[in-house]
């Protein structure tokens, strides 16, 4: 790829962030990221439209404290007309990105709409961490060949080549920039959160009262149960900070993903129940960036063929996971759209069936 010495800084950077991945994995990430971004745009729609309505009628009700990039670009609060336009453009672009039509362009437009939409919501409120990785993943998508597989673009290209009588070559691995950026951002996010507790909170953070205070201050469904004992809160504090701080191990030692990915997801589901973070789905769905997604259908097929018990476990596990995602997404996205997405996933699974 380059003529530089293989040990130079830039070669190292290329190996870390531009290393090739199977095109199907990148395509799957594109679909996932666009789907999650679509969910996010719809999730924030109520908030953005309420502010936009206020701007159009009586003037902004909430204090406008712009994000830095909004300030640098001189972007001001918008009224209903502009908000509607951004919403429609974002929705259409992300839908096209999800199915892979003009993949790089639709992802680019979707990313711009997503950033503007988030900027509007956060400038009238408080920025949150739960879509930082999503933002970087979306931002990186147009810079890689994300439509080479798992996309309408790929189907049309193959069809056109066959029609012209060209030989259809297997698609070579493509630059995995979006995957590596997503992985890096997630690792920084977890490690930063854990390290900050260690550095700013110190040993005192583990006194049990701190976690008790965090959980009870939000009064989730399970807060009372999990915050009732100071001792158990101390134990939980240790567990939380260990998982967060040591999370970057997943980059250095891939086998550790078997522990850290379920632990991180379990952590988010726990905070959902014990705090008011919400489901945090925009983070834990992106943990798929650490998995070889193109192998998932084959792995599931293998699980189903290994015997009745593995088959039942596979079906129940996948079913529970899908039900969880659909249940959360259904709070903002229409059910028919989710069912269509499920059908598409099922089709991809059947299509990937070996033999």
């Amino acid at each position: 790829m380059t003529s530089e010495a293989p040990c130079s800084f830039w070669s190292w950077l290329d190996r870390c962030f531009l290393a090739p991945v199977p095109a199907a994995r990148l395509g799957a990430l594109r679909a996932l990221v666009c789907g999650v971004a679509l969910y996010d745009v719809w999730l924030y729609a109520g908030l953005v439209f309420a502010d936009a309505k206020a701007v159009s009628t009586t003037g902004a009700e909430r204090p406008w404290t712009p994000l830095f990039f909004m300030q640098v670009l001189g972007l001001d609060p918008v009224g209903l007309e502009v908000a509607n336009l951004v919403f429609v453009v974002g929705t259409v672009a992300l839908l096209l990105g999800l199915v892979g039509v003009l993949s790089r362009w639709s992802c680019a437009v979707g990313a711009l709409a997503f950033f503007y939409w988030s900027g509007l919501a956060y400038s009238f409120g408080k920025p949150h961490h739960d879509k930082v990785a999503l933002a970087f993943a979306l931002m990186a998508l147009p810079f890689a060949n994300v439509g080479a597989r798992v996309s309408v673009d790929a189907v049309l290209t193959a069809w056109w080549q066959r029609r012209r009588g060209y030989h259809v070559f297997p698609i070579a691995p493509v630059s995995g920039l979006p995957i590596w950026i997503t992985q890096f951002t997630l690792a920084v996010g977890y490690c930063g959160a854990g390290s900050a507790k260690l550095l700013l909170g110190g040993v005192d953070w583990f006194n049990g009262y701190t976690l008790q205070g965090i959980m009870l201050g939000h009064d989730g469904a399970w807060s009372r149960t999990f915050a009732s004992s100071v001792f158990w809160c101390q134990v939980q504090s240790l567990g939380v900070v260990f998982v967060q701080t040591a999370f970057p191990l997943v980059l250095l030692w891939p086998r550790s993903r078997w522990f850290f990915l379920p632990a991180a997801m379990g952590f988010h589901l726990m905070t959902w129940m014990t705090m008011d973070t919400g489901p945090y789905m925009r983070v834990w769905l992106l943990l798929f960036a650490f998995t070889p997604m193109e192998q998932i259908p084959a792995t599931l097929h293998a699980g189903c063929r290994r015997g009745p018990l593995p088959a039942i476990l596979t079906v129940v596990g996948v079913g529970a996971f899908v039900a969880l995602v659909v249940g959360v997404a259904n709070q903002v996205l229409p059910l028919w759209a989710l069912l269509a997405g499920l059908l598409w996933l099922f089709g991809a699974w059947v299509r990937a069936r070996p033999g």
Partner: protein
Amino acid sequence: MRWLALTWLCGWLLAATVAAQDFVPTTAALPPAVAALEVAPGLHFSLTAAAVEIRDATGVRAMASTAPTGTVHALTMVPWGTVVAGGENGVFVADAQHPVLDRADVHDGAPAAGVISVAADRQGRVWWCTSTSFGVLDLRLRFGRAFAATDGLPPATFTRVAIGDDGRLLLATAAGTFRYEPDVGDAPRVRTAPASQSPLTAAANGDVTLAIEVQARGGATLRHRRRHHHLLLPIEGNTVRGLRPGWHVVEVHAVDRDLRRTIVGEYSIEVPLPRAFDPRALPLAFAACLLALFGCSYRWGGGGSVARRCALALLRTGVLAVVVLQLLAAVLGYGRSWPFVGFSMYTENWHQNDVLFRPRIVGLRSDGSRVPLHEDDLGVVQDGYWQMLAEVVYGAEHHRQALFAKVARQRRAGEAPFVGFVLADGRIRLTAHGPVDVAPTVLVTYRAP
């Protein structure tokens, strides 16, 4: 005729002199001290020699406390049912739903110890005295004020405060009983304010000085509240401190010695970004860094077309910028730089005896029952709990009506309709034996007209 005029003049002067006296000696008898309070049907809190007891259908038992109260000397109850106990270790609160004594959530102007008497008036203010000091506090405002000799306070030793039958305050001292009439004269009002209400610009550290002078009985203390926030914070030396970058609407509240409160100003204040984040200079510096990075990452003299080498250099520059900025943001922690963010959330430490605050909304039904309602169900949560609820406390009437409309929609078929709501700041005390729900600070009790 001349004698008549002179008599009238003397009489007027005498009346004016007496009126100007804040504490007037009186022979009025003090009402009997409160020995027991019925806080709910069949539930009594009573004062024994040194402590508070709970009496209900199950019997009599001592009331627990989250901190040592010392000897409790007096009990009183504010109109919305919160019981205030004054004692050796300060002021404590409890209520029917939370029968456990907990230190009152009052930030300043309340006695820390040695309270010998407390009395609540019809407005919900709690008048208190120690043997050497006297004052008033308001649980809703979370602050109080101690009277000074300049307020005409009679000499100590004080022995009791009580509310007389006519609503006036009676202060018993070693030298006799004095009558004090709160809320006489005008509420706090502006003496001088800026001619223009144009937006103000704060210093980079978030401090802004207001040119405002206020007249109030006993002298005014100023507090400020940011729009959508629910705490009235003190203003010292007419300076509002520590505003964050961005636009704020800040209300200035003036409070007199009787804790009458008036909004005397509303300011739009712009707080510029710290110089390090100057939106003109920083992007330029950033662009210069990117250009340098591009130069370094370009494969000078390497193979491939110039376009390909440029594309690769751009990609490398972008990747490195994203990586470095993420790490930098993690260290600097400026939240507004999203998606480059810091990680200072949840790093605050909590300790034993700390209090957690959380809004509580209770629906009041026509049959007298009370129903706790969740903010999520009512749709009053945005980024924080108070963002939408603060205006219910301090804003115009339509905010309370709007919240009541949401409460009313929570009625289920077959249940009595809602006729009002209580909005309170719920409190949970962290103790070694586990978290304890203690009496909330009731902020609004609303009943639909």
